[in-house]
C-alpha cells in the first residue's frame, strides 16, 4: 500500500477518474477505498452493491428520486450572486445554496436517495450517524416521508452543541441515541451505528451520511450528492456566463465537497479547493485537517488519510464545527489530493467564525459554521486572484449553530 505516486501515474490515475473508472471493481479510487469491515457486514455490503447496480439508474427509481428532489426537497437550489462580498473581495462571488434545500443542508440529497433505495431493498429499519445533526435531521425527514423507523446515533458532545437539531429529529419520529463512548463526536457515532448494523445486517439499512466508509458508500453518496455540482455547472453557464475559475467547499467527511467537485473534475481550468477545519492550530488533536496533515490508514471501513499517532491509534480532533470534527475523510478526496487535482487547505476556528459573521452581514445569509470555513478560504483566494470568478458551496444554514454562536460571536451581546 505504497503511496509514492510519480507524475506519470498521477496523470494516468486522474485520466481514469475523469473517464469515470473509479471506484473500480474492488471499490477503490487508485489506492484508496476498499472494504475493511467485519465479515458479518460483507453480505450486507454485497446486497447494497447489487441494489445500487439494480436501482440507481433504474428509470422508475430515478423518477421517484427526481419527484422527491423537485417537489419535497426544493431542487434545484438557487445559485446566488453575492454583490457585497464581490465588491469587498474584488472578485465575482457565486454561492450554491444548499442551505435552501429542505432541512437546511445538502445532506437531504443523499438521505432521500438512500431511503428510497432502502425501501427497495426491503429494509425494516434504518440506522444513521450524525455529527452536526444535519444528516440526522435529513435521515429523520426522509424516513418519516417514506414510513421507515430510524435510529440516529449522535455523540454526547454534539448533542449538547447542536441541541436544536436533536429536537427536530425527535419531532419527526426518530430515536436519537447518545453515544458516550470514544470521543463522543462523529467518529464514535459512526462506530456505534456500525455496531448496531452488525447486530442486524439483513433487516437494517445503514444510511451513512458522508462519502466515507466501506465500498459502496463513498460511491453511493457521491452519486447522490453530485446533483450539487451538475446544477451548479448549468447555473454558472446561464447566470455567470461561464465556468468558475475556482470552486470552494468545506470538507469533513467530504460529502458536500465531492458532490460539488465531481462534475468539475474534468474541467482542468477550474481550480478546486477543499477546506478543512484548522481548529485551534496545527498541533495533533487541535484540528480536524485530515487531508492537510493526515497519513494513510484504515478507519471505519476504508483505506484513506487519517489523523493518527505513531502507533496507528486514531487521534482526537477539534473543530468549532461538529460537522468537520472527524479524523478521517472520504477515500475519493484522499485520491484527488494524491493525484494533485484538488488542493486542500485548512481554516481555523476564529477565521471561520469571522467569515460567518461577514457573510451574514454582507449577504443576509446565516451559514453553518462548517460552510463558513469555505468562505474564509475563498476570501484569501479572491484577494490573491483579483476579478476571478469563484463558486462557493453554501452547504448548510446556521440555525443549528446558535448554541455555539451564543458562546462565541454573540458572547456578551445577547
Amino acid at each position, binding site marked *: 500500500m505504497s503511496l509514492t505516486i510519480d507524475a506519470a501515474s498521477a496523470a494516468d490515475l486522474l485520466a481514469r477518474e475523469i473517464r469515470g473508472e473509479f471506484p473500480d471493481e*474492488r471499490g477503490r479510487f487508485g489506492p484508496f477505498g476498499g*472494504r475493511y469491515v467485519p465479515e458479518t457486514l*460483507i453480505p450486507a455490503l454485497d446486497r447494497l452493491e447489487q441494489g445500487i447496480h439494480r436501482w440507481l439508474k433504474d428509470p422508475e427509481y430515478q423518477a421517484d428520486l427526481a419527484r422527491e428532489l423537485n417537489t419535497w426537497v426544493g431542487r434545484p437550489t438557487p445559485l446566488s450572486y453575492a454583490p457585497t462580498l464581490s465588491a469587498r473581495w474584488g472578485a465575482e462571488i457565486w454561492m450554491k445554496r444548499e442551505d435552501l434545500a429542505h432541512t437546511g443542508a445538502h445532506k437531504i440529497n443523499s438521505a432521500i436517495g438512500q431511503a428510497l433505495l432502502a425501501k427497495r431493498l426491503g429494509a425494516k429499519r434504518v440506522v444513521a450517524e450524525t455529527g452536526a445533526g444535519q444528516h440526522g435531521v435529513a435521515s429523520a425527514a426522509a424516513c418519516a416521508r417514506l414510513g421507515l423507523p430510524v435510529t440516529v446515533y449522535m455523540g454526547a458532545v454534539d448533542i449538547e452543541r447542536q441541541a436544536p437539531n436533536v429536537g427536530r429529529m425527535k419531532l419527526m419520529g426518530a430515536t436519537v441515541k447518545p453515544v458516550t*463512548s*470514544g470521543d463522543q463526536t462523529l467518529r464514535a457515532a459512526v462506530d456505534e451505528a456500525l*455496531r448496531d448494523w*452488525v447486530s442486524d445486517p439483513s433487516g437494517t439499512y445503514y444510511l451513512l451520511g458522508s462519502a466515507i466508509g466501506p465500498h459502496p458508500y463513498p460511491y453511493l453518496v457521491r452519486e447522490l450528492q453530485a446533483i450539487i455540482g451538475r446544477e451548479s455547472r448549468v447555473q454558472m453557464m446561464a447566470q455567470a456566463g461561464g465556468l468558475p475559475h475556482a470552486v470552494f467547499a468545506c470538507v469533513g467527511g467530504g460529502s458536500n465537497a465531492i458532490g460539488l467537485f465531481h462534475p468539475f473534475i474534468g474541467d482542468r481550468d477550474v481550480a478546486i479547493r477543499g477546506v478543512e477545519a484548522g481548529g485551534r492550530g496545527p498541533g495533533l488533536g487541535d484540528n480536524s485537517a485530515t487531508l492537510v496533515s493526515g497519513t494513510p490508514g484504515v478507519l471505519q471501513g476504508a483505506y484513506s488519510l487519517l489523523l493518527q499517532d505513531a*502507533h*496507528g*491509534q486514531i487521534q482526537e480532533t477539534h473543530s468549532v464545527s461538529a460537522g468537520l470534527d472527524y479524523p478521517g475523510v472520504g477515500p475519493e478526496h484522499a485520491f484527488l489530493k494524491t493525484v494533485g487535482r484538488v488542493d486542500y487547505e485548512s481554516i481555523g476556528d476564529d477565521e471561520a467564525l469571522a467569515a460567518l459573521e461577514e457573510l451574514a452581514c454582507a449577504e443576509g445569509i446565516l451559514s453553518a459554521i462548517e460552510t463558513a470555513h469555505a468562505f474564509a478560504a475563498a476570501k484569501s483566494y479572491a484577494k490573491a486572484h483579483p476579478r476571478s470568478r469563484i463558486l462557493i458551496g453554501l452547504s448548510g444554514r446556521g440555525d443549528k449553530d446558535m448554541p455555539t454562536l451564543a458562546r462565541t460571536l454573540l458572547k456578551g451581546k445577547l
Partner: protein
Amino acid sequence: MNTSKDIGAAIAAATAAKRPAIVAFMTAGFPKRADFIATLNRIGSAADVIEIGVPFTDPMADGMTIQRASEAALHEGVTLTWILSELTAAPVKPAAPLLLMSYLNPLLRFGFERLPAAARAAGVSGFIVPDLPREEAAEFDAALKAEGLALVQMVTPVTPRDRLEALCRPAGGFVYAVTMTGTTGKVVDVPDEVLTYLDAVRAASGAPVCAGFGIRNRAQVERLAPHVDGVIVGSALVEVLERGEDPAAFLRGLHL
C-alpha cells in the same frame, strides 16, 4: 519455533483429551500494564490457545466490555510495539500458542514488511484481524505465510454458503465461527440453527473450527462441544479480570 501449525496441534491435543479446546482472549496490559506477562501466564495455565488483544481506539466489532478494556489499556500506554517487546523479553511464556487479535490500522502502521518477523520472534503464531475480510487480506496473508504464521479467518451465521466454503478452504490455524450477528460479549443462548450452521462450517473447513462471541458459561460449552473443536471466551474472561478474580479458575470451569 512457533508457527501456524502449533495452533492446530494445541487444538488437536484438546480433541484427543475429548474436550473442546479453550481459546482465551485477553486485552494486553489490562487491567494493569505491569501485570501483562503474569496475567498471560495465569491464563496460559488453563487455556489451549491465547488471543492477545491489541487495543484500538475504534473497536467496531466489539461490545462494551472489550471497548472498556481497550480504552483502559490505551490509557496505560499499551501499544503493539510494547506488546511485542514484552513478549520477546518475557523469561517465561505459556506453552499455549499465542495469537494477536488486532484491528488493521495498528498493524498497517507497524508495517507489514516488519511485523511478521517481529511477531514470530515474540513467540506469536498468528493473527486475527476482524476488519480485514478475505478480499483485502492477500498482502498481509502472504507476509504472514512467509514466516509460517496463520491469519485466522472469521465466518458468521449470515455468510452465504458458497462464500463460507471459499473462506474455509484456505483457512490457517483455525476457523473462527462467530456464533451470532452483533458485537462481542452479549449473553446468548445457543439456538439450534447456530448448531446447524457450525456443522456446516465444520463440513467446509479443513482446519479446526472454534466458536466465539457471547460464550460465557459451561452450559453453552457443553451444548457447543459436539459441533466444534474449540470455544473462544473473550468478554466473559475480560470481566473476570476486571473484577480482579482468578482467570485460570474461571477457564478451568469451562473444561469439560
